[in-house]
């Protein structure tokens, strides 16, 4: 069964205020412990040897010299890990192909990208470990490689997986292909729809892979003891998922591994999957010592997941008065070395802001010699939306219709049938568009070479498996143990706020912590903007259990019937009417007597939360283009987003601002640069250019609250939506500034300047 709790409108005392986060003081004093801050007595340092080739058969690995180097305590290679069959296996309720997981963590037959692990060592110091890596001899047969997604789709392209036949094509193809999967979504009749169109715009777009760019490199510490139990401390978005993955690839019982999530120094989807964790446990198992593994920044860029680069074709038709009659897209997504790009989500998000009768989206998931992609904030959606919102903008302009008006004419509303499945429930898209149009930013004057752009985004938001426990302590304070990692957004504060609101007590009385895997049942990742929605629902359930027990206890103590006891403002009070009167009891009074009146009071929830409410956002951006250098400055930026309910508005603003700036980086300068040899040329923050403080202005936010009917406080989730619109919004602003429609991102200066010069040359 799954769980939904309906929204109830009520007067709020704590939800919607801005209390201080419980992790704040630790984080400003340096006391907070992140992945690399954990140490154990006797620990070794683990390091990974990585392939210098983009594509190579591994003919032999000789570790003999490394093994005998003084200080080296263990070496592992592909031979230390079991082969996993090519089938999907459960990780909690997630299905994962462990054939790929085990190969990504340690290459087997072939190295499939520059940076692919081929061996790992554990030694008494980092310098000894590095020396040992240099002593490992790997015999490679270098193979032709393919980096570009369009090239990889061509017949005759170098094949990463000789046994990979495109799924989703009937009949089964004769030849293997880098296209792992073909997907198609649609409804209606696009051919007929395009026939009705007065205006058709068709464009092709290309984007580069970008990295999540979390500032904390992956770091973990593992300790395997001789009785077959393992402890793992790691920086993760989902310790239960990491535990499951480690157990499977190491062939251990799930219950034998205990994972403690450290403070996580950013993830954004990049810390959803294991990299070094199983290697660290394996090295610890072999060396009988704890093993600590911390990635360098270079390793993070070379071997952990960026998101896909892609080739996107969009075609949209509409009538003269701006009603869309048909929409079509082809999305070709780089998956990296193993299948699994976010092309399905991208396909579903591409047009789901519009009420469309005729839609068709084809998606291809394409393996290339790059690191396997990982999720990145609204996975895939920004890429598809860049194309779609660029075309939408062009159509509005061609028809002389205001871009927000054009979107309103076609906007999805409650009851709109999506092309991927359900009808939309109550949503706030129209409200965000209207608020954007009314915002002073939208009508502010612009100077020469300046332009304004808008674009919109949609994300599903999700629920899924979630647990928590709420323990009333003997003094009336409460400890809330959460199973979803607080990945930065302040979910510990938000959860404690909901508990305090339910119980009618102070926020400060609730201490929220994240429990390790042994304290609670399975939790899905903190991903998909689910934490405040799903974990919040679990917290409300646990709170209501506690309230129920408090009422029962009060009824017994005061010797009145249960129905005579109401819970209000943190007290058991007479329910009123004809039933019994009694002296109210505070939470603390009941807590003090709990031990002697039946034992401690606690609530807990183990749910599969459903009913996530989709989120929509509109971004407005002003840019200025330097026509002589192609440089783009972001002058002003406004985010308008429906979040359902902002439990803690400051932390919601933080999500909107942070997501928008990540999107700005994606649009302007971030990209993976590979040489002809398939080797990554910019594995560092110097040449992988995330925005710095002086690159961006203040990011204004407008929070729209259209409650999600399936959450007790109306929460939708807010983390993903803000990264979706920036790429398109900026491209649209640049078009308005210089009259050029740029379809390749990033909009780096050489690319922009070339477009300006080419256009000038074409004019003569």
């Amino acid at each position: 069964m799954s769980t939904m709790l309906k929204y109830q409108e009520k007067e709020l005392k704590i939800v919607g205020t801005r209390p201080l986060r419980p992790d704040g003081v630790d984080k400003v004093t340096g006391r907070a412990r992140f992945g690399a801050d954990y140490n154990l007595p006797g620990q070794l340092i683990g390091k990974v040897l990585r392939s210098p080739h983009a594509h190579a058969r591994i003919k032999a690995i000789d570790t003999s010299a490394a093994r005998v180097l003084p200080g080296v305590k263990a070496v592992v290679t592909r031979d230390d890990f079991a082969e996993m069959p090519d089938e999907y296996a459960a990780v909690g309720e997630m299905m994962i192909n462990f054939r790929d997981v085990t190969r990504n963590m340690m290459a087997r037959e072939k190295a499939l990208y520059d940076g692919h692990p081929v061996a790992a060592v554990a030694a008494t110091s980092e310098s000894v470990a590095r020396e040992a890596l240099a002593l490992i001899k790997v015999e490679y047969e270098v193979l032709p490689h393919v980096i570009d997604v369009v090239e990889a789709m061509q017949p005759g392209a170098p094949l990463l997986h000789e046994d990979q036949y495109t799924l989703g094509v009937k009949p089964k193809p004769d030849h293997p292909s880098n296209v792992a999967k073909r997907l198609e979504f649609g409804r209606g009749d696009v051919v007929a729809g395009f026939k009705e169109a007065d205006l058709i715009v068709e464009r092709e777009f290309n984007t580069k892979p970008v990295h999540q760019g979390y500032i904390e490199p992956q770091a973990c510490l593992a300790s395997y003891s001789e009785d077959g139990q393992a402890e793992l401390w790691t920086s993760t978005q989902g310790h239960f998922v990491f535990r499951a993955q480690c157990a499977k690839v190491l062939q251990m019982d799930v219950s034998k591994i205990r994972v403690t999530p450290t403070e996580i120094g950013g993830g954004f989807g990049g810390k959803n999957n294991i990299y070094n964790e199983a290697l660290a446990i394996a090295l610890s198992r072999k060396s009988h010592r704890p093993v600590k593994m911390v990635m360098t920044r270079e390793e993070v860029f070379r071997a952990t997941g960026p998101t896909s680069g892609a080739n996107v074709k969009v075609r949209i038709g509409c009538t003269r008065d701006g009603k869309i009659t048909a929409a079509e897209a082809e999305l070709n997504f780089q998956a990296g070395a193993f299948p699994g790009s976010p092309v399905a989500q991208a396909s579903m998000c591409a047009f789901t802001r519009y009420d469309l009768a005729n839609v068709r989206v084809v998606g291809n998931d394409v393996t290339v010699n790059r690191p396997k992609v990982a999720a990145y904030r609204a996975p895939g959606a920004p890429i598809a939306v860049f194309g779609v919102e660029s075309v939408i903008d062009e159509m509005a302009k061609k028809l002389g219709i205001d871009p927000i008006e054009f979107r309103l004419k076609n906007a999805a509303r409650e009851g709109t049938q999506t092309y991927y499945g359900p009808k939309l429930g109550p949503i706030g898209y129209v409200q965000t568009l209207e608020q954007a149009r009314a915002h002073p930013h939208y009508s502010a004057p612009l100077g020469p070479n300046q332009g304004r752009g808008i674009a919109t985004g949609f994300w599903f938001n999700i629920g899924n498996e979630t647990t928590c426990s709420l323990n009333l302590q003997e003094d009336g304070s409460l400890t809330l143990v959460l199973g979803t990692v607080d990945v930065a957004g302040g979910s510990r504060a938000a959860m404690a706020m909901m508990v305090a609101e339910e119980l009618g007590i102070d926020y400060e009385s609730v201490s929220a912590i994240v429990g390790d895997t042994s304290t609670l049942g399975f939790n899905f990742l903190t991903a998909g903007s689910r934490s405040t929605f799903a974990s919040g629902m679990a917290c409300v359930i646990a709170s209501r259990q506690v309230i129920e027990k408090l009422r029962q206890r009060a009824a017994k103590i005061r010797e009145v019937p249960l129905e005579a006891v109401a819970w209000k403002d943190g007290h058991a009070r007479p329910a009123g009417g004809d039933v019994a009167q009694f002296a109210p009891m505070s939470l603390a009074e009941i807590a003090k007597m709990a031990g002697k009146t039946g034992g401690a009071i606690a609530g807990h929830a183990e749910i599969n939360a459903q009913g996530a409410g989709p989120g929509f956002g509109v971004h407005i951006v002003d840019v200025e283009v330097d026509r002589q250098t192609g440089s783009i400055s972001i002058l002003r930026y406004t985010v308008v987003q429906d979040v359902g309910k902002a439990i803690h508005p400051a932390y919601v603003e933080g999500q909107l601002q942070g997501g928008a700036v990540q999107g700005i980086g994606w649009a302007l300068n971030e990209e993976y640069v590979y040489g002809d040899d398939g080797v990554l040329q910019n594995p560092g923050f110097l040449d992988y250019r995330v925005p710095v403080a002086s690159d961006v202005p203040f990011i204004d936010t407008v929070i729209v609250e259209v409650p999600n009917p399936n959450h007790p406080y109306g929460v939708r989730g807010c983390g993903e939506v803000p990264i979706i619109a920036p790429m398109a919004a900026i491209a649209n602003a640049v078009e308005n500034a210089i009259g050029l429609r740029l379809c390749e991102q990033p909009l780096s200066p050489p690319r922009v300047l070339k477009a300006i010069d080419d256009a000038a040359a074409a004019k003569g």
Partner: protein
Amino acid sequence: MARITLSSSLAPFTDGVLDLELEVGNVRQLFQALGERYPELRAHLEAGLAVAIDGEIYQDALLQPIAHDSDVILITKIAGG
């Protein structure tokens, strides 16, 4: 009988059939019935499908009831960053 609609991306595994009616009581029974009728679909059902029952999306909810007059749409499962 519940009306079942498959996402068009599943057409290759069902000989093009995208709409059908099945008498099933919950999601697990639905997946079983579909798997029996279309063996090639089985891997996809397991690997990551969610269902929308009367407009509400359910993920990983095998025991979610399906009424005899429900509209059920099979969709791709959604994760996130």
